[in-house]
């Protein structure tokens, strides 16, 4: 912290000193500094941002700029410590140019992003250590890159023969355990390939994208105003997180000033979503250690919150409440009082269950030192959210880049350093109490007024915006750019699962396979949000 005496604009100043030729521009509405650079200077600049300035690679994506211009843009979004603006580095590939320099050798977190860009845009990251297919499974025909503008959204894919080569470990007594894509419990599809010698896991390879539904392409077929419906269905358990991030991006594009009451209601819904998911997760983690009693209690409380949601807005997942310009459901005073009353009861209930859970020695034995994700590996993977906060990464969008009503509702961020399954359980436990406290604050402070404003203008083609929301899993990012006639030109969705999945491959090393379900549950990542 000593090398940045003035927190304001220090990153821009540092860039100015090292790269004097670069001049930032500041798009309106987003706390963001954007630098354009050429492909030669890019690796040097991003390495500087990552290594010297401790910038976390929050997002890396491509945009096919047709029909406006015949070029592809690559965008690198870096996040810095609390309350600093994002830095967006843009480079472009003109015309038929298909090659760009991979930054994975110096920034590990870029690995999946660059493979994704290769699959979806056909741009090739030169120097990437692993160029196997990621999103497109091996049976997709050659040359199908769905996010290219000349690829039609309802294209019918043919099938070809192909084989995905898993990385193997060879040696005496080493064998592989394939798991999935269809698992034993009620969970989503994904493939895990373990290499083990005896009990401990020597290597895990995660092979995902079984659920790839073409979400980003579907966004491009929708008008800016209506695509909230699709954002709600990116990952069902994060309905509010995704729809809120989407709405914020579009509101920045349309220069909409959301009424304050709507902002408070947005925070309310987001915290309700966090509550029911965290309650469910704690129960599910206990269940994976065969502690059925805690699972039953937590499942009961989760159900209580979901029924509360249903009574409140007519949807257990809070669907249909978010709209561009505000929210579509008001919550009146007596309803707010009822919510707080019920949540007070749940808090007391949960404290009692928590005391039982943490007093259980055999549970603690299973959780402690299980699935340790060190701070170093978490940082290298740019891990976010609950998983990051359990590994000492002190970041929370609600505090660092306040959105909705969080500029008036300071959040106490739960932080643990051990990085094991127990730390992830504790982060969730703390956040349950914090969410209930925040909802009490919301009840006390919520102002009167309208709950939405109507969008009165359209976004001009080519304008774009970035929005970040702290969903219950972690940082959700949306990049939205406007096309012709109020349509979406490009929508990049980044669920926290996408960055956290690769990290799980490291957290399981040295653990035994029977502990994998527990470690997986302690991360509890979305397959749908990852696969898109």
């Amino acid at each position: 912290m000593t090398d940045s005496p003035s927190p304001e604009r220090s990153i821009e100043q540092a860039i100015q000193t090292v790269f004097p030729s670069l001049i930032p521009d500041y798009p309106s509405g987003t706390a963001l500094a954007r630098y354009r650079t050429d492909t030669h200077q890019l690796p040097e600049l991003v390495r500087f941002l990552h290594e010297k300035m401790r910038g976390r690679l929050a997002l890396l994506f491509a945009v096919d700029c047709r029909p406006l211009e015949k070029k592809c843009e690559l965008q690198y979004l870096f996040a810095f410590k609390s309350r600093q603006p994002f830095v967006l580095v843009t480079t472009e590939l003109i015309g038929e140019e298909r090659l760009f320099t991979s930054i994975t050798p110096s920034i590990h977190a870029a690995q999946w992003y660059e493979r994704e860009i290769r699959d979806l845009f056909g741009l090739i990251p030169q120097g990437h250590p692993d160029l196997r297919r990621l999103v497109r499974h091996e049976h997709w025909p050659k040359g199908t890159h769905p996010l290219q503008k000349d690829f039609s959204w309802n294209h019918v894919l043919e099938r070809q023969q192909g084989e995905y080569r898993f990385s193997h470990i060879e040696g005496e007594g080493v064998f592989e355990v394939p798991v999935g894509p269809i698992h034993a419990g009620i969970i989503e599809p994904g493939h895990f390939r373990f290499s083990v010698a005896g009990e401990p896991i020597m290597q895990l390879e995660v092979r995902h994208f079984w659920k790839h539904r073409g979400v980003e392409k579907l966004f491009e077929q929708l008008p800016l105003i209506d695509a909230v419906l699709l954002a709600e269905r990116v990952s069902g358990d994060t309905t509010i997180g995704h729809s809120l991030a989407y709405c914020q991006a579009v509101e920045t594009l349309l220069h909409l000033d959301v009424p304050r009451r709507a902002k408070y209601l947005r925070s309310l819904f987001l915290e309700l979503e966090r509550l029911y998911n965290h309650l469910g997760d704690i129960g599910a983690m206990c269940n994976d250690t065969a502690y059925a009693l805690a699972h039953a209690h937590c499942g009961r409380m989760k159900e209580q919150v979901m029924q509360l949601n249903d009574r409140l807005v007519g949807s257990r997942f809070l669907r249909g409440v978010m709209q561009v310009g505000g929210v579509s459901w008001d919550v009146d005073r007596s309803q707010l009082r009822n919510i707080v009353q019920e949540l007070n009861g749940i808090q007391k209930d949960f404290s009692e269950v928590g005391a039982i859970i943490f007093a259980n020695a055999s549970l603690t034995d299973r959780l402690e030192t299980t699935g340790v994700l060190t701070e170093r590996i978490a940082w290298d993977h740019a891990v976010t959210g609950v998983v990051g906060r359990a590994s000492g990464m002190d970041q929370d969008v609600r505090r660092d880049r306040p959105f909705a009503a969080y500029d008036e509702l300071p959040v106490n961020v739960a932080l643990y350093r051990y990085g094991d399954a127990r730390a992830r359980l504790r982060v969730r436990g703390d956040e349950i109490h914090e969410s209930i406290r925040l909802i009490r604050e919301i009840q006390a402070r919520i102002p009167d007024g309208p709950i939405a404003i109507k969008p009165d203008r359209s976004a001009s083609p080519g304008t774009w915006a970035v929005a970040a929301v702290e969903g219950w899993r972690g940082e959700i990012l949306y990049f939205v750019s406007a096309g012709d006639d109020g349509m979406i030109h490009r929508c990049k969705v980044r669920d926290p699962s996408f960055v956290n999945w690769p990290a799980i491959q490291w957290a399981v090393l040295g653990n035994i396979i029977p502990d994998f379900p527990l470690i997986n549950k302690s991360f509890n990542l979305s397959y749908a949000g990852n696969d898109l």
Partner: protein
Amino acid sequence: MFRIIKKSLKTGVVTGQYPESERPSEPINPAVTEKAKPFRRSLAIREVDTGSCNACEMEMNALLNPVYDAERFGIHIVASPRHADALVVTGPVTVNMERALKDVHRQTPDPKIVIALGDCAINCGIFKGSYAVTGPVERHIPVDVRIPGCPPRPAEILEALSELRKERP
């Protein structure tokens, strides 16, 4: 120990504390109830997700919590399609999951019932037409029961399942 017992006593029985399903479940084809007869009052279910947004999974999971407690009706979730009487399929069938779905269906012993859960499984919902989606479940395997909703509430799922096992004169 006493703390655990005290908590359980204080909590009491929560099973059944949910609002009744408002939507009447769709009538089930008599041929399907006939097919379900050998299962009598129990039903072993394997859940297969072929590309849902995971809300349907959450509601299936909710069936097993103490409030709905589907096990009291003899509904079990089993770990392998080879143990299953019925497949519950959620989500539109993605290009990448098509083969896995057909495999699962082949490996489920006859007689079997296929239940399409949620709007996406029935008609692909909002994902209809996408390059990565190959169509609703019934394009790939025969579907016997449809439970609409986005997602259907657990009470609605329970009602449809009990309709299936209702003994007819």
